[in-house]
C-alpha cells in the first residue's frame, strides 16, 4: 500500500485544485441513473461544489459507477477508466458495486467492483438519494484535499493483479494492450 508522504506546497495546491474541481464521467447502469439528474439540476445543484459533468473520459476526473456491472459492461468500464487522465478517482454508487446487492447470486454480474478497479469511495444505499451522492462527493473532495485519494497510483502499481482479476471474469479478453 502507498504510505502517506509529506507533500510540498505545490502538491498541496495541486490537490486543492483537484478537490475543488471535479468533473464526472457517469457510467449509468440500471436504476442508478435516475438519481443523477436531480443531483445536477436546480433541486440539489452539485455545480455549487465545482462538480460538473464531463463530455468524454479524456476530460473527466471521476468515474461514477451507478449500480451493477455485468461482465460485458465491465469491459467498457475498464477501457473508459484507462482512457482517463491521472489523477482519477472511482466512485462506487449503490450496494451492487459493493457486494452485488440484489444481484448477489446473479451469474453474469460482478459482485465486488474493488477487485477490478481501485474504488476511492463507496456510497451505499439502494439507491442512494441525491443528498448522499453529494455527501459522498464532498467526502471524496476532502480525501483528495488531504492527499489520500491514491486509487490511480494503486492501480498503476498493482496493474498485474488487477489485470489477472479482470481476465478471470472476462473470458474473451480482446481489450487492446495499448491502454496501459
Amino acid at each position, binding site marked *: 500500500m502507498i504510505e502517506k508522504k509529506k507533500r510540498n506546497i505545490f502538491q498541496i*495546491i*495541486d490537490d486543492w*485544485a*483537484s478537490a*475543488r*474541481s471535479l468533473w464526472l464521467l457517469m457510467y449509468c447502469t440500471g436504476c442508478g441513473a435516475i438519481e443523477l439528474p436531480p443531483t445536477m*439540476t*436546480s433541486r440539489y*445543484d452539485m*455545480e*455549487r*461544489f*465545482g462538480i*460538473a*459533468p464531463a*463530455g*468524454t473520459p*479524456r*476530460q*473527466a*476526473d471521476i468515474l461514477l459507477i451507478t449500480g451493477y456491472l455485468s461482465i460485458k459492461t465491465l469491459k467498457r468500464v475498464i477501457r473508459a477508466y484507462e482512457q*482517463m*487522465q*491521472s*489523477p482519477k478517482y472511482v466512485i462506487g454508487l449503490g450496494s451492487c458495486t459493493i457486494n452485488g446487492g440484489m444481484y448477489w447470486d446473479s451469474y453474469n454480474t460482478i459482485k465486488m467492483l474493488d477487485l477490478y478497479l481501485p474504488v476511492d469511495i463507496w456510497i451505499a444505499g439502494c439507491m442512494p438519494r441525491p443528498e448522499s451522492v453529494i455527501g459522498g462527493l464532498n467526502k471524496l473532495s476532502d480525501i483528495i484535499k488531504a492527499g489520500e485519494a491514491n486509487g490511480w497510483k494503486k492501480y498503476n502499481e498493482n496493474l498485474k493483479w488487477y489485470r489477472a482479476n479482470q481476465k478471470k471474469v472476462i473470458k474473451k479478453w480482446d481489450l487492446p494492450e495499448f491502454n496501459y
Partner: protein
Amino acid sequence: MNIVWTVLGIIGVYIYGVFLMGLGRKISARVQLRYGPPVYQNYIDILKLWTKKTNISHGIMFDLGPVFLLTGSIGTLLLIPIAATEQLMYFGFSGDIIVIMYLMVFGSLGFALAASQGANPFGIMGISRALTLLAAYELPFILGIVILMMDANSASLSNIISHQAGGYMNWYIFKQPLAAIPAFIALLGMMGKQPFDIPIAPQEIATGPMAEFGGKYLGMMMSSHAIFMTAKYILFVNLFLGGAGNPINMIFKVFLIWLFPLFVGLVYPRFKTSQAVRFFWGVPSLIGLIGLIIHWLR
C-alpha cells in the same frame, strides 16, 4: 517598456476573460434557480487541468493545436486597440479590419488540424460543424463591417473608432443600426453560446473538437478561449460602442455586450447545423443588405 505593457495587457484580458466565464456560470445558475458555482470556479478548473499528472498525445499536430489557438487569440488581441491610451494601443494603430478578420481564423484552423489528428470522428464532425457555422455567420458580419467601412470610408480600426467620437449618439450601434443588428446577431454565432453551440454540443457529439483533449491541452484551450472571447468583445466595442478611453471604460462596455449572448443563450435551445446556416443567411443578412443599399443610395 512597450513589451511590459503588452504582456500586462494580455494577462489582464486573460484574467478578465476567465472571470467572465465564471460569472456566466453563476448568472445562468441563478436564472435556472440554482445556487451555482463560485465566480472563481473557472480559475480552479484551469489550474486543475494544468496540474493533471498525465496527458496523452496523438502526434505532432495534436501537440501544436493549443499553440495554434493561443497564437491566433493573442495575435488577434494585439491587433485590436484595447483602450485609447498610448500603452494599450499595441500594434492596433495599423489594425486593418480585413487583416484582423483573417487573423481571427488562424487559431481555429490550426486547432482544427489538431482535432483531426486526434482521429476521433466526433472531433472531425465538430470541426466540420464549426467551419459551417463560420461560413454562416461571416455573411451578416461582413455586411455590417462593409457598412461601417462605407460610413468611415476606411478599413482602419482606429479611423472607425475616431468616426464615433463625440457622445454616445455617434456610436455606430445607434448611428448605423442596420449594420449593428446583423453584426450583433453574427456575434451570437461567433461566441458559440447556446443557440449556436453546434460545434460543441456535448449531448450530441461529446464536446466535438475537444473530445480527445484532456489535461494541459484542455487547460490551454480554456485559456485561449477566454482571451479570444474577450478580444472579440473588445473588437465589437471598438466597432460599435465607440471604443474606450481607458481600460475601466472598456471593461464596463465589454461587460455590457457580454450580457447579450449570455441571456440569448439561456433562453433558446440549440439549432441544427442547417437551420443555423439558413438563419444567418436569412433575416440578418437581409437586414444587412437593406442597410447596405440604403447607405449606398444615400
